[in-house]
């Protein structure tokens, strides 16, 4: 016990003597959290303050194009900039000046009206309500297309959501035109609307509740756990460098000749770096609770969740430390430890669902993500933060994190023993 305490005290001294290192350990993760939350905040807002400029070429100048422009403007997501030439609009978008251009074809309104009238008259004639049209041959109306130009650098998710939105808008305009045509045919006076054009089926999102209040997830509640975990796992880099330094400066050689086992040496490092993880976590929580609201970002609510949150942070920290100990034991130089450690953290983060949710990954990657300790940590954080669950629900995840720590540390000890066996 005395040797473990001495090792811990030595690690504390080594850490506090490296002020630059401490600053990096604590400030960089905070900076990362603030920047990522600021960047991602708009995607979590239902009504965004930011309007995306969109070029619109209106070759129709009719009722339909007027409707499209009105709908786009009302969405509050786009700033409509009128352009006269399709070629100019295309060039502006393909050169990356704009994200999107919408080209409404010529005579769209007239063609749509004609097509709808034709269909409505056809239906009514089948019911014997419009005998005039029976003998008239059907005019072939060519299909129209609204053209969309996207900047090639535009993300697929943005393209999909814009395409879906426009598709929905056009369907609505078509439906309304059909209703209007029926109305005109059936009620020439037009005094009373026959059809209710409002959507009949609506949907409502049911959220988890706490004290009968719905918990609405915001960008901070998603980002704080994800990026805190990312920061916690980055402890792998300084920890593995610390171990490599011991080997390179000869202190480890001296320790090998002393009556102290490797587990005690690693124990001292584990205690100190676990403390670092928990301080990091505390600072990130404080940023989420106090700094975010002051910056106009949504804050996080940790009321009643702190014990479980700290439990998840503790076991996540242990898992990260286990990996750092293993890497530091195997690596021979800092040049091996640092790039490998940081790349490994990025890979584990990607697999764990820090950037892209696991459920949107291909099936094979979803399976692989199950072996990422970051995935266990993230799920446990989400369980506590967003799903509002109790200790029993996070028990499997924190058990896996603990097992990961134990197995990586034991492998490190065995590796060291075998390498230095006499």
């Amino acid at each position, binding site marked *: 016990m005395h040797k473990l305490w*001495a090792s811990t005290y030595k690690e504390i001294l*080594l850490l506090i003597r490296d002020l630059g290192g401490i600053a990096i350990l604590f400030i960089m993760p905070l900076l990362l959290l603030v920047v990522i939350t600021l960047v991602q905040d708009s995607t979590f807002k239902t009504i965004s303050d930011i309007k995306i400029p969109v070029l619109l070429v209106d070759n129709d100048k009719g009722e339909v194009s007027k409707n499209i422009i009105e709908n786009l403007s009302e969405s509050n997501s786009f700033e409509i900039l009128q352009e006269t030439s399709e070629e100019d609009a295309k060039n502006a978008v393909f050169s990356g000046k704009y994200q999107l251009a919408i080209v409404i074809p010529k005579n769209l309104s007239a063609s749509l009206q004609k097509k709808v009238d034709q269909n409505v008259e056809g239906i009514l004639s089948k019911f014997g309500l419009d005998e005039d049209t029976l003998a008239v041959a059907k005019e072939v109306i060519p299909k129209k297309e609204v053209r969309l130009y996207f900047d090639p650098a535009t993300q697929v998710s943005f393209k999909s959501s814009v395409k879906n939105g426009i598709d929905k808008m056009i369907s609505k305009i078509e439906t309304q035109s059909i209703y209007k045509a029926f109305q005109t045919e059936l009620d020439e006076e037009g005094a009373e609307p026959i059809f209710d054009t409002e959507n009949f089926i609506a949907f409502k999102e049911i959220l988890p509740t706490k004290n009968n209040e719905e918990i609405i997830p915001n960008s901070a509640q998603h980002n704080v756990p994800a990026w805190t975990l990312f920061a916690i796992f980055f402890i792998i880099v300084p920890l593995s460098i610390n171990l490599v330094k011991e080997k390179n400066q000869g202190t480890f050689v*001296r320790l090998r000749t002393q009556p102290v086992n490797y587990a005690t040496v690693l124990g001292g490092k584990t205690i100190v770096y676990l403390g670092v993880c928990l301080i990091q976590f505390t600072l990130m929580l404080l940023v989420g609770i106090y700094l975010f609201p002051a910056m106009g970002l949504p804050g996080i609510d940790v009321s009643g969740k702190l014990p479980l949150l700290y439990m998840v942070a503790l076991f996540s920290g242990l898992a990260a430390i286990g990996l750092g100990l293993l890497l530091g034991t195997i690596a021979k130089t800092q040049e091996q430890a640092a790039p490998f450690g940081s790349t490994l953290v990025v890979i584990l983060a990607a697999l764990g669902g820090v950037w892209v949710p696991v459920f949107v990954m291909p099936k094979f990657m979803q399976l692989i993500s199950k072996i990422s300790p970051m995935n266990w940590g993230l799920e446990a954080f989400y369980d506590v933060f967003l799903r509002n669950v109790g200790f029993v629900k996070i028990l499997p995840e924190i058990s896996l994190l603990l097992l990961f720590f134990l197995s990586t540390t034991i492998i490190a000890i065995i590796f060291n023993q075998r390498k230095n066996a006499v």
Partner: protein
Amino acid sequence: MIQINQLSKKYKGAEDFSVKNLDLKVEDGEIYGLLGPNGAGKTTLISMLTSLLKPTSGSFTINGLNFKEHKNQLKQLIGIVPQEYALYPTLTAFENLQYFGSMYGIKGEILKKSICEHLEIMGLSKFANKKTATFSGGMKRRINLIAGILHQPKVLFLDEPTVGVDVQSKNVIIDHLKLLNKKGTTIVYTSHHLNEAEFFCTHVAIIDNGEIIVKGIPSELIKKQKSANNLEDVFLAKTGKALRDYA
């Protein structure tokens, strides 16, 4: 007593043995110098005797104990002063010694007192609270030595303890080692300073190509070697004048 029997070491991928079937006996209370040109196998031999390297074949015992069966007992019994400084540069001299002393199980006031005494003898008391990164080579060597003797080892292994230090530091180190030896510590040390070894060691062994060429009391070896006036003459006569560069 150290008893070495047919000890050999061949590094992975190496063509030759670094230490070849070496037999040696070091009696209690001796100061035994292992001398030899670069690459002779001195550091390899010391590394095996201090559990840093696994021998390819052969065996050895220190006070009748071996590392396979009595690892921790032996580690408590021996002290090592490696060729590298083996210190934490951002810790002070006192903090370094406190840590390494603690690893031998020494604690509290006993440890503190021992550190202060050694620092005093080595002339480093006033630098106790300075970081070792700021120390000169000679000061680091002295701290390096203290770190290996805080637990009063029965057998002390030193790998070139005076390399790269000034004459004053060297004298302090040698004087302190003599004092330790007087108190009963057996010393095994390697050195390139043949003049220092001649007057410091009770016995020497000249090693070349992993084998002991000659061993004995320095004055007797000089006497036996034709036209030799000192240990350096014996050394050159036995190992030749060819350069011993190796990589």
